[in-house]
Protein backbone atom coordinates (compact mmCIF):
# COMPACT_ATOMS: atom_id res chain seq x y z
CA UNK A 1 0.00 0.00 0.00
CA UNK A 2 1.71 3.18 -1.11
CA UNK A 3 0.66 6.62 -0.05
CA UNK A 4 -2.29 8.20 -1.88
CA UNK A 5 -0.08 10.02 -4.33
CA UNK A 6 2.05 7.01 -5.08
CA UNK A 7 4.92 8.47 -3.05
CA UNK A 8 7.42 5.85 -1.93
CA UNK A 9 6.88 6.20 1.79
CA UNK A 10 8.02 3.19 3.80
CA UNK A 11 7.98 2.34 7.49
CA UNK A 12 11.26 0.79 8.63
CA UNK A 13 11.46 -1.15 11.89
CA UNK A 14 14.91 -2.62 12.42
CA UNK A 15 15.62 -4.67 9.31
CA UNK A 16 11.92 -4.86 8.37
CA UNK A 17 10.31 -2.49 5.86
CA UNK A 18 6.59 -1.97 5.33
CA UNK A 19 4.51 -0.02 2.84
CA UNK A 20 1.52 0.03 5.20
CA UNK A 21 1.75 2.06 8.39
CA UNK A 22 -1.13 0.21 10.00
CA UNK A 23 -0.31 -2.73 12.25
CA UNK A 24 -3.33 -4.83 13.17
CA UNK A 25 -4.11 -7.10 16.06
CA UNK A 26 -5.80 -10.45 15.50
CA UNK A 27 -7.72 -10.69 18.79
CA UNK A 28 -11.46 -10.46 19.47
CA UNK A 29 -12.74 -11.19 15.95
CA UNK A 30 -15.95 -13.20 16.09
CA UNK A 31 -14.92 -15.57 13.27
CA UNK A 32 -11.67 -16.37 11.43
CA UNK A 33 -13.33 -15.30 8.19
CA UNK A 34 -14.14 -11.83 9.52
CA UNK A 35 -10.57 -11.54 10.79
CA UNK A 36 -9.18 -12.56 7.39
CA UNK A 37 -11.39 -10.11 5.50
CA UNK A 38 -10.79 -7.26 7.96
CA UNK A 39 -7.02 -7.71 7.84
CA UNK A 40 -7.18 -7.69 4.05
CA UNK A 41 -9.34 -4.54 4.06
CA UNK A 42 -6.97 -2.79 6.48
CA UNK A 43 -4.06 -3.12 4.05
CA UNK A 44 -1.83 -4.13 6.95
CA UNK A 45 1.37 -6.06 6.34
CA UNK A 46 2.14 -6.97 9.96
CA UNK A 47 -0.22 -8.51 12.49
CA UNK A 48 0.16 -9.29 16.17
CA UNK A 49 -0.41 -12.63 17.85
CA UNK A 50 -0.33 -13.68 21.50
CA UNK A 51 1.65 -16.59 22.95
CA UNK A 52 -0.26 -19.02 25.13
CA UNK A 53 -0.01 -22.54 26.48
CA UNK A 54 -1.28 -25.22 24.09
CA UNK A 55 -4.60 -26.52 25.44
CA UNK A 56 -3.74 -30.19 25.79
CA UNK A 57 -7.35 -31.12 26.61
CA UNK A 58 -8.86 -29.47 23.54
CA UNK A 59 -6.75 -30.10 20.48
CA UNK A 60 -9.49 -29.51 17.94
CA UNK A 61 -8.84 -25.80 17.52
CA UNK A 62 -7.23 -24.83 14.26
CA UNK A 63 -4.11 -22.69 14.36
CA UNK A 64 -4.47 -19.03 13.58
CA UNK A 65 -1.17 -19.14 11.74
CA UNK A 66 -2.63 -20.84 8.67
CA UNK A 67 -4.91 -17.89 7.89
CA UNK A 68 -2.17 -15.38 8.63
CA UNK A 69 0.42 -17.13 6.49
CA UNK A 70 -2.05 -17.31 3.60
CA UNK A 71 -2.34 -13.54 3.88
CA UNK A 72 1.43 -13.17 3.71
CA UNK A 73 1.61 -11.10 6.89
CA UNK A 74 4.71 -10.55 8.98
CA UNK A 75 3.91 -11.99 12.40
CA UNK A 76 4.55 -9.81 15.44
CA UNK A 77 4.24 -11.85 18.64
CA UNK A 78 3.38 -9.96 21.79
CA UNK A 79 4.05 -10.57 25.45
CA UNK A 80 0.54 -9.54 26.51
CA UNK A 81 -0.49 -10.40 30.06
CA UNK A 82 3.11 -10.67 31.28
CA UNK A 83 3.45 -8.84 34.57
CA UNK A 84 7.18 -9.31 35.09
CA UNK A 85 10.25 -8.77 32.94
CA UNK A 86 11.16 -12.42 33.48
CA UNK A 87 7.84 -13.69 32.08
CA UNK A 88 8.01 -11.28 29.14
CA UNK A 89 11.55 -12.37 28.27
CA UNK A 90 10.63 -16.07 28.40
CA UNK A 91 7.49 -15.43 26.31
CA UNK A 92 9.52 -13.54 23.70
CA UNK A 93 12.08 -16.34 23.54
CA UNK A 94 9.32 -18.95 23.16
CA UNK A 95 7.75 -16.84 20.41
CA UNK A 96 11.05 -16.67 18.57
CA UNK A 97 11.39 -20.43 18.74
CA UNK A 98 7.80 -21.09 17.63
CA UNK A 99 7.58 -18.46 14.91
CA UNK A 100 11.17 -18.02 13.71
CA UNK A 101 11.13 -14.27 14.22
CA UNK A 102 13.19 -11.85 16.24
CA UNK A 103 10.33 -9.34 16.30
CA UNK A 104 8.53 -8.81 19.57
CA UNK A 105 5.86 -6.40 20.73
CA UNK A 106 7.11 -6.11 24.27
CA UNK A 107 4.47 -5.63 26.94
CA UNK A 108 5.17 -5.71 30.65
CA UNK A 109 1.88 -4.90 32.31
CA UNK A 110 1.73 -3.13 35.65
CA UNK A 111 -1.95 -3.21 36.48
CA UNK A 112 -4.92 -5.37 35.45
CA UNK A 113 -7.48 -2.57 35.42
CA UNK A 114 -5.68 -0.03 33.26
CA UNK A 115 -3.19 -2.37 31.56
CA UNK A 116 -0.67 0.44 31.84
CA UNK A 117 2.95 -0.65 31.44
CA UNK A 118 5.27 -1.46 34.33
CA UNK A 119 8.00 0.88 33.17
CA UNK A 120 10.78 -0.58 35.32
CA UNK A 121 10.02 -4.09 34.11
CA UNK A 122 9.71 -2.83 30.54
CA UNK A 123 13.20 -1.32 30.55
CA UNK A 124 14.67 -4.43 32.14
CA UNK A 125 13.02 -6.78 29.64
CA UNK A 126 13.95 -4.53 26.68
CA UNK A 127 17.61 -4.50 27.77
CA UNK A 128 17.71 -8.31 28.04
CA UNK A 129 15.94 -8.94 24.74
CA UNK A 130 18.02 -6.43 22.77
CA UNK A 131 21.20 -8.08 24.10
CA UNK A 132 19.66 -11.36 22.91
CA UNK A 133 19.23 -10.03 19.35
CA UNK A 134 15.52 -9.21 19.34
CA UNK A 135 13.89 -6.39 17.35
CA UNK A 136 12.02 -4.87 20.27
CA UNK A 137 8.87 -2.81 19.76
CA UNK A 138 7.84 -1.77 23.26
CA UNK A 139 4.28 -0.89 24.28
CA UNK A 140 4.89 2.07 26.54
CA UNK A 141 3.01 4.96 28.09
CA UNK A 142 3.06 8.42 26.57
CA UNK A 143 6.16 9.49 28.49
CA UNK A 144 8.92 11.14 26.43
CA UNK A 145 11.61 10.36 29.02
CA UNK A 146 10.80 6.68 29.00
CA UNK A 147 10.69 6.78 25.19
CA UNK A 148 14.23 8.21 25.16
CA UNK A 149 15.44 5.49 27.53
CA UNK A 150 13.90 2.81 25.33
CA UNK A 151 15.58 4.35 22.29
CA UNK A 152 18.93 4.48 24.08
CA UNK A 153 18.63 0.78 24.92
CA UNK A 154 18.29 0.05 21.20
CA UNK A 155 14.55 -0.46 20.66
CA UNK A 156 13.54 -0.40 16.98
CA UNK A 157 10.54 1.88 17.74
CA UNK A 158 8.52 3.15 20.64
CA UNK A 159 4.82 2.40 20.82
CA UNK A 160 3.12 4.81 23.23
CA UNK A 161 -0.48 4.15 24.15
CA UNK A 162 -2.91 6.86 23.09
CA UNK A 163 -5.40 5.69 25.72
CA UNK A 164 -5.86 2.45 27.67
CA UNK A 165 -5.92 -0.77 25.61
CA UNK A 166 -9.37 -1.44 24.21
CA UNK A 167 -10.78 1.83 25.56
CA UNK A 168 -11.39 3.52 22.21
CA UNK A 169 -10.81 6.89 23.88
CA UNK A 170 -8.57 8.18 21.08
CA UNK A 171 -5.46 10.34 21.43
CA UNK A 172 -5.84 11.52 25.04
CA UNK A 173 -2.64 13.52 25.18
CA UNK A 174 -1.54 14.65 21.74
CA UNK A 175 1.01 17.01 23.27
CA UNK A 176 2.87 14.15 24.94
CA UNK A 177 2.87 12.27 21.65
CA UNK A 178 4.39 15.40 20.06
CA UNK A 179 7.00 15.54 22.82
CA UNK A 180 7.90 11.92 22.12
CA UNK A 181 8.17 12.67 18.40
CA UNK A 182 10.53 15.55 19.17
CA UNK A 183 12.56 13.47 21.64
CA UNK A 184 13.38 10.28 19.75
CA UNK A 185 14.76 9.50 16.30
CA UNK A 186 13.26 6.00 16.07
CA UNK A 187 9.73 5.44 14.70
CA UNK A 188 6.83 6.29 16.99
CA UNK A 189 3.80 4.04 16.65
CA UNK A 190 0.61 4.79 18.54
CA UNK A 191 -0.40 1.53 20.17
CA UNK A 192 -3.75 1.26 21.91
CA UNK A 193 -6.72 3.54 22.37
CA UNK A 194 -7.70 4.16 18.73
CA UNK A 195 -11.50 3.96 18.58
CA UNK A 196 -12.40 5.22 15.14
CA UNK A 197 -10.91 6.48 11.89
CA UNK A 198 -10.37 10.07 13.03
CA UNK A 199 -8.24 8.84 15.96
CA UNK A 200 -5.92 7.07 13.54
CA UNK A 201 -5.80 10.12 11.29
CA UNK A 202 -4.93 12.39 14.24
CA UNK A 203 -2.07 10.09 15.26
CA UNK A 204 -0.65 10.24 11.76
CA UNK A 205 -1.24 14.00 11.40
CA UNK A 206 0.82 14.50 14.56
CA UNK A 207 3.70 12.86 12.71
CA UNK A 208 3.55 9.35 14.13
CA UNK A 209 5.10 6.75 11.88
CA UNK A 210 2.38 4.18 12.32
CA UNK A 211 -0.64 3.03 14.29
CA UNK A 212 -1.29 -0.34 15.90
CA UNK A 213 -4.90 -1.23 16.53
CA UNK A 214 -7.01 -4.24 17.36
CA UNK A 215 -10.27 -3.56 19.22
CA UNK A 216 -11.00 -0.48 17.10
CA UNK A 217 -11.41 -2.82 14.13
CA UNK A 218 -12.44 -6.13 15.70
CA UNK A 219 -14.99 -4.53 18.03
CA UNK A 220 -16.74 -2.40 15.38
CA UNK A 221 -20.22 -3.48 14.27
CA UNK A 222 -18.81 -4.09 10.81
CA UNK A 223 -15.12 -4.88 11.31
CA UNK A 224 -14.34 -5.24 7.60
CA UNK A 225 -15.79 -1.84 6.79
CA UNK A 226 -14.03 -0.24 9.77
CA UNK A 227 -10.75 -1.83 8.66
CA UNK A 228 -11.12 -0.09 5.31
CA UNK A 229 -11.90 3.19 7.06
CA UNK A 230 -8.80 2.80 9.21
CA UNK A 231 -6.67 2.09 6.17
CA UNK A 232 -7.82 5.28 4.50
CA UNK A 233 -7.52 7.29 7.73
CA UNK A 234 -3.90 6.25 8.20
CA UNK A 235 -3.14 7.15 4.58
CA UNK A 236 -4.99 10.48 4.82
CA UNK A 237 -3.33 11.38 8.12
CA UNK A 238 0.11 10.52 6.77
CA UNK A 239 -0.44 12.56 3.63
CA UNK A 240 -1.76 15.51 5.64
CA UNK A 241 1.33 15.38 7.84
CA UNK A 242 3.67 15.25 4.84
CA UNK A 243 1.69 18.01 3.09
CA UNK A 244 2.07 20.31 6.09
CA UNK A 245 -1.07 21.73 7.59
CA UNK A 246 -1.83 25.47 7.74
CA UNK A 247 -1.19 27.25 11.03
CA UNK A 248 -4.15 27.72 13.36
CA UNK A 249 -5.34 31.34 13.59
CA UNK A 250 -7.92 32.99 15.77
CA UNK A 251 -9.46 35.23 13.07
CA UNK A 252 -10.65 34.78 9.52
CA UNK A 253 -8.57 35.23 6.38
CA UNK A 254 -10.72 35.62 3.27
CA UNK A 255 -10.29 33.03 0.58
CA UNK A 256 -11.79 35.24 -2.15
CA UNK A 257 -10.22 38.46 -3.53
CA UNK A 258 -11.13 41.62 -1.57
CA UNK A 259 -10.88 43.80 -4.74
CA UNK A 260 -13.75 44.31 -7.19
CA UNK A 261 -16.51 43.34 -4.83
CA UNK A 262 -19.91 44.33 -6.30
CA UNK A 263 -21.35 47.51 -4.79
CA UNK A 264 -18.01 48.93 -3.51
Amino acid sequence: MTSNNGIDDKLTLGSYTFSSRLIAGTGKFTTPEIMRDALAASGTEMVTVAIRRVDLQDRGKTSILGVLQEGGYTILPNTAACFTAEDAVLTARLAREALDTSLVKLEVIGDKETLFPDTEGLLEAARTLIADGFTVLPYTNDDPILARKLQDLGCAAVMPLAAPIGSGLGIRNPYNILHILRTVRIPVIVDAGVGTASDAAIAMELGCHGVLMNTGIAGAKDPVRMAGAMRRAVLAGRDAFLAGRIPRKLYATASSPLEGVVGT
Partner: protein
Amino acid sequence: MNAAAGWRTGLKLRLNGKPHEAPEGTTLEALLRELDLHAERIAVAVNGVVQPRGGHPQVRLAEGDEVEVIHAVAGG
Protein backbone atom coordinates in the same frame (compact mmCIF):
# COMPACT_ATOMS: atom_id res chain seq x y z
CA MET B 1 1.69 -45.99 31.35
CA ASN B 2 3.63 -47.68 28.57
CA ALA B 3 4.27 -50.65 30.83
CA ALA B 4 4.07 -52.84 27.74
CA ALA B 5 7.11 -51.07 26.35
CA GLY B 6 8.99 -52.07 29.46
CA TRP B 7 9.24 -48.55 30.88
CA ARG B 8 8.96 -47.97 34.57
CA THR B 9 6.45 -45.31 35.42
CA GLY B 10 6.77 -42.53 37.88
CA LEU B 11 8.45 -39.46 36.41
CA LYS B 12 6.30 -36.65 37.76
CA LEU B 13 6.36 -33.49 35.67
CA ARG B 14 4.43 -30.25 35.59
CA LEU B 15 3.11 -29.83 32.06
CA ASN B 16 1.55 -26.43 31.30
CA GLY B 17 0.95 -25.97 35.00
CA LYS B 18 -0.71 -29.37 35.56
CA PRO B 19 0.68 -32.66 36.94
CA HIS B 20 1.76 -35.07 34.23
CA GLU B 21 3.31 -38.49 34.54
CA ALA B 22 5.83 -39.82 32.04
CA PRO B 23 8.05 -42.90 31.89
CA GLU B 24 11.52 -42.65 33.43
CA GLY B 25 14.09 -41.55 30.91
CA THR B 26 11.56 -39.77 28.69
CA THR B 27 13.08 -37.25 26.32
CA LEU B 28 11.37 -34.05 25.31
CA GLU B 29 10.92 -35.47 21.83
CA ALA B 30 9.18 -38.56 23.24
CA LEU B 31 6.91 -36.44 25.43
CA LEU B 32 5.83 -34.30 22.48
CA ARG B 33 5.25 -37.41 20.40
CA GLU B 34 3.13 -38.93 23.15
CA LEU B 35 1.09 -35.70 23.22
CA ASP B 36 0.84 -35.74 19.41
CA LEU B 37 2.44 -32.31 19.24
CA HIS B 38 4.57 -31.49 16.25
CA ALA B 39 7.58 -29.36 16.88
CA GLU B 40 6.81 -26.85 14.16
CA ARG B 41 4.69 -23.87 15.25
CA ILE B 42 5.06 -24.68 18.94
CA ALA B 43 7.85 -23.95 21.37
CA VAL B 44 8.86 -25.63 24.59
CA ALA B 45 10.56 -24.40 27.73
CA VAL B 46 11.85 -26.66 30.49
CA ASN B 47 12.31 -24.96 33.84
CA GLY B 48 12.14 -21.54 32.17
CA VAL B 49 14.69 -22.29 29.44
CA VAL B 50 13.58 -22.49 25.80
CA GLN B 51 14.55 -25.79 24.19
CA PRO B 52 15.42 -25.39 20.47
CA ARG B 53 13.48 -27.94 18.44
CA GLY B 54 16.61 -29.55 17.01
CA GLY B 55 17.74 -30.49 20.50
CA HIS B 56 14.53 -32.17 21.73
CA PRO B 57 15.83 -35.76 21.27
CA GLN B 58 18.75 -34.99 23.59
CA VAL B 59 16.72 -33.37 26.38
CA ARG B 60 16.10 -36.03 29.05
CA LEU B 61 13.38 -34.97 31.46
CA ALA B 62 13.86 -35.23 35.22
CA GLU B 63 11.55 -35.53 38.22
CA GLY B 64 9.77 -32.27 38.92
CA ASP B 65 10.62 -30.59 35.60
CA GLU B 66 8.32 -27.76 34.62
CA VAL B 67 7.48 -28.09 30.93
CA GLU B 68 5.72 -25.30 29.07
CA VAL B 69 4.37 -25.92 25.56
CA ILE B 70 3.12 -22.81 23.77
CA HIS B 71 1.76 -21.70 20.44
CA ALA B 72 0.50 -18.55 18.80
CA VAL B 73 -3.14 -17.52 19.33
CA ALA B 74 -5.18 -14.53 18.27
CA GLY B 75 -4.27 -11.43 20.19
CA GLY B 76 -3.42 -7.76 20.07
